[in-house]
């Protein structure tokens, strides 16, 4: 007598509905997302009202760091014959051959080094150091081209050279990309969609001008600048 019976209530919450929602969200993110590409420097692009989207295929991105280091990234075609990996493998072979010819060097890459390069999204070392760079581990490679860790070596050497019979390394890369066996990339470059310059908004203009001048020298005078979207009221 007198004992109050406390009713035990179950604290189990039915999580099924919650699970349904999360799965839906997950599906949404998986379908809409494109993965961030790893880049040696994070840049905040300036904004413009232009609504032209960056193409997803056949694109050369030239990344200019605030200190003026230049990096190149090549995206191939959707067609698997001209996929990014195949294109990069072809690219590095022709670049090394051209470099050996112009500068009288004798660099040869192993198949493993070529396949490492084909898997690398963005690169930026001098061709002379390319072989050694490709032999490093993934982490070491990233650190090597990070301008904050290795300001001296990071970036593709570039100068104001206007003599195309003795091109600088940036010009060798760009010309090799233009001459790749993929006919579509030549088309997009000619139309001005194929080359996108990506730089931080607080980069000084002289660093961008070097890249623009080089492109102009190579008669690739149509290109695009990567921007973020803004409205006319901003």
């Amino acid at each position: 007598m007198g004992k109050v019976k406390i009713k035990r209530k179950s604290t189990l919450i039915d999580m099924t509905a919650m699970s349904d929602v999360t799965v839906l969200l997950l599906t949404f993110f998986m379908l809409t997302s494109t993965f961030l590409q790893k880049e040696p420097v994070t840049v905040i692009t300036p904004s413009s009202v232009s609504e032209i989207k960056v193409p997803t295929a056949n694109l050369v991105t030239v990344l200019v760091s605030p200190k003026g280091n230049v990096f190149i990234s090549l995206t191939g075609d959707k067609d698997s014959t001209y996929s990014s990996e195949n294109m990069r493998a072809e690219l590095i072979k022709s670049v090394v051959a051209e470099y050996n010819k112009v500068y009288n060097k004798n660099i040869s890459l192993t198949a493993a080094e070529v396949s490492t390069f084909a898997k690398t999204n963005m690169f930026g070392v001098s061709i002379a150091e390319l072989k050694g760079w490709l032999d490093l581990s993934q982490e070491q490679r990233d650190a090597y081209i990070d301008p904050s860790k290795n300001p001296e070596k990071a970036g593709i050497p570039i100068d104001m050279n206007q003599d195309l019979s003795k091109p600088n390394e940036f010009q060798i890369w760009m010309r090799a990309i233009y001459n790749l066996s993929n006919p579509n990339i030549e088309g997009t470059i000619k139309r001005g969609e194929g080359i996108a310059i990506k730089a931080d908004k607080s980069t000084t203009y002289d660093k961008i001008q070097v890249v623009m001048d080089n492109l102009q020298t190579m008669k690739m005078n149509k290109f695009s600048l990567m921007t973020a979207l803004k409205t006319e009221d901003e």
Partner: protein
Amino acid sequence: MAQIDTGGDSGKGKSHQKKMSIHVDFTPMVDMNMLLITFFMLCTTMIKSQTLQISLPTNEKVEKEQQNKVKQSEAITVILDSDIDENGTPTKNYLYYYEGMIPLTEDGQVDLALNPMKEEQFLGNENGAARGMRKIFQDRNKQVLEKINVLKEQWKNKELASTEAANDSVYQARAKEIRNDSNLTRPVVIIKATPNAAYESVVTALDEMQINSISRYQIDRISHNDSVLMMALKGIPYGQTPAEE
């Protein structure tokens, strides 16, 4: 929801089967999904970058006679400059402009007494009205903009063509026609950036060309006379002009 009732009816049966309920706990499943969502949210880009397309002239030497001389009355020269800190990062952006040519004295020097250069700013619209440099561009490109605005109205009301896509393409084609119509008075904008100028200002200047439908513009190197004018405007005595070209 996740319970499956397997219990038989408990009325008449002799062997009273116990009501069994299979209750699956979904909490770990939710935990895992949440982790995956977080992963996807952090590792993806939702917004695709936009591009601003520009075409520069070739670097080849053009014969003096073949060069298109810009009509004096049409020219606006925009000069971009920035202050930079010790790390070389731009801190404050400046915008100067002048219309027409630089006045010269008889011996070919810059006539500072007639300095045509003025300071301006890139400003966004306020309540739909243009301000700053944009207002100046719009005033100079009035004839083109009036026609474009009429066209834009038609495009918004879908009067140009029957289908959506055709409407867009007709609009694009006609807008291009208007922008390049040589019967209208259109300005020629010459954008000159100093080596210290922030890249952001250059993009903003190019962007203004799009916003104001200016079809003729070029990016050029800053000349000696330009920097003399700019220094005079900034109040830095001549002789301390930074080295260039």
